[in-house]
């Protein structure tokens, strides 16, 4: 079942009087349970594509459909609510809330979803256990390593039970060991819980673990390879 459908996506910017075509006719389908890497050189449109799929940016032309709902023309508040219920985000710089502990950061999305406290706490602890941080739940982000923070970010992204997780260069700031650990965790979640992951990455280790690799260049898909 297609969870993401884009149709002839275009995203143009004007920079210094010149029109930059960040996305230039991207059409793709992503199925539920995929572990997809979007790769390409800098400026190829990877991040723009994730922003548009995630409803953070609007396409100049074309449409985005998430689980059968077109989000392209949604109003701001509806889009925020849609993101909350359907999309998990993992950011390159972790972007945890510095004043909250690992547990509170993970609970935060569920709090926005108005889940009761007991349920929030139970799920957050379960997710932190799954990412191997059960002993770190009361630590604040500045008391954790980059790898640990990114694992909290993954737990936070999954807390809302999203239809898919968008991750922009999630391993860019991590060392080899942390990268391997994080990939193991995400791969396991993908395999066991059928969580759909879509990464933008330069990292060969991520590309190697992906089941599908979409390559962008100058805003166009130049290859789309599914591994067996």
């Amino acid at each position: 079942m297609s969870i993401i459908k884009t149709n002839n996506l275009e995203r143009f910017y004007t920079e210094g009087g010149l029109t930059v075509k960040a996305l230039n006719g991207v059409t793709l389908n992503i199925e539920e349970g995929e572990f997809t890497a979007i790769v390409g050189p800098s400026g190829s449109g990877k991040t723009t594509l994730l922003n548009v799929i995630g409803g953070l940016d609007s396409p100049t032309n074309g449409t985005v459909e998430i689980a059968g709902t077109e989000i392209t023309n949604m109003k701001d508040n509806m889009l925020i609510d849609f993101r909350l219920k359907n999309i998990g985000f993992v950011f390159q710089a972790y972007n945890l809330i510095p004043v909250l502990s690992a547990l509170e950061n993970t609970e935060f999305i569920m709090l926005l979803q108005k889940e009761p406290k007991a349920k929030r706490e139970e799920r957050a602890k379960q997710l932190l256990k799954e990412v191997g941080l059960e002993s770190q739940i009361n630590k604040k982000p500045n008391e954790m390593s980059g790898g640990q923070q990114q694992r909290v970010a993954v737990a936070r992204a999954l807390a809302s039970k999203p239809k898919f997780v968008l991750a922009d260069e999630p391993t860019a700031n991590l060392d080899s060991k942390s990268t391997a650990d994080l990939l193991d965790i995400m791969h396991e979640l993908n395999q066991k819980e059928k969580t759909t992951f879509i990464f933008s990455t330069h990292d060969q280790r991520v590309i190697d673990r992906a089941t599908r690799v979409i390559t962008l260049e100058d805003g166009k898909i130049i290859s789309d390879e599914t591994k067996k």
Partner: protein
Amino acid sequence: MILKISWRNIWRNKLRSLVVMTAIFLGVWSGVFIDALSLGMNNQRTENFLSTSIGHIQIHNPKYLEDNKISFTISNSNELLDFGKNIDGFHISNRTKIGGMVSSANGASAGNVVGIIPENEKEVSSIYESMVYGNYFEEYKKNGIVIGRKLAEKLKVKVNSKIILTFQDPNNEIIASAFRIQGIYKTANSRFDEMNVFVQQQDLARIMNTEILIHESGIWLDNKENVDQVTENLKSNFSNLEVRSWKIIAPDLSYTDEIMMQMLYIIMLIILAALAFGIINTMLMAILERRRELGMLMAVGMNKTKLFSMVVIETIFLSLISGPLGLFVAYLSVEYFKVNGMDFSSVAAGLEDVGYSTIVYFDMDPEFYFGTLVMVVTTAILSSIYPAYKALQLNPVESIRGI
């Protein structure tokens, strides 16, 4: 959790938060302190004027107010005494009041010669409590006189010195008579001290060879709030006389009294308005520093209402920690100076020229503390609106620089 995040956010940059909280604390404290000082000074000034020179109500022959002629007397002054007996807390002193010259070997000065019955005058005036030398007619001495210190200094006289009073009698004859200084008083109003001398009524009557002449009835009420009612009552019962409350006699005092609270609130408002810019600046800096985090919050699904609330709550916390603390310390300061007073002796001359006491006892209406608290909260809310609006204007993509 929004409350928790807002609270913890305040302490992310402790120094900056403490600086703005200290500013709010000092602003609120100093505002209340200055207001209490102003109110205390004003109340004391009003009380000084009322208790020494004006009283609560004065009654005259209407013609006397147009022309201070000695012959324009209150003919039915005894009826006023009888009238007062029926009213609780009503005190009256009938006075002889003549314009004249006071002179000594060293100089002369124009002034009012006020003939009194000391026992009655003590009921309506506090001058007997303001004696600095001698006494206030403790025993009858023929031609004894009590004068103000300012006048004594001007005439270079002291207790037991002899001075000459010169004035016109009812027949327009100039009379000069020697008086011996029995006491010297000093009120908070040096102009009053320079202008008014007190003698016993019977001495004036004897010197002028007339019956006791009454030109002014001074009335003091135990409850100042009854002034308007008693004034109206007197007017209706003594239509031949001019009955005036202190509010009419000294409209400047009355007006100052009426607008005082408004002025105090305006002073506080100005201080809080200045503080508001400090709060806005601090919150804008906080928003700018945290734009990546705010962008993330919007990206993951925090709606605009919650984001707005978070910034507002943070600002209110910032103000509500220090504002009430400032109020509390201000309350303690005011209570201390309410009892002990603040000494302004170093500028006594200037203050006394305009009727202020040199020891100022602070005063404050309890409602003002509540009013100030409301103003602090309102300032916090208003100050938070612009930074919160700026937070809403952030573009998540630009703030996080891509997901």
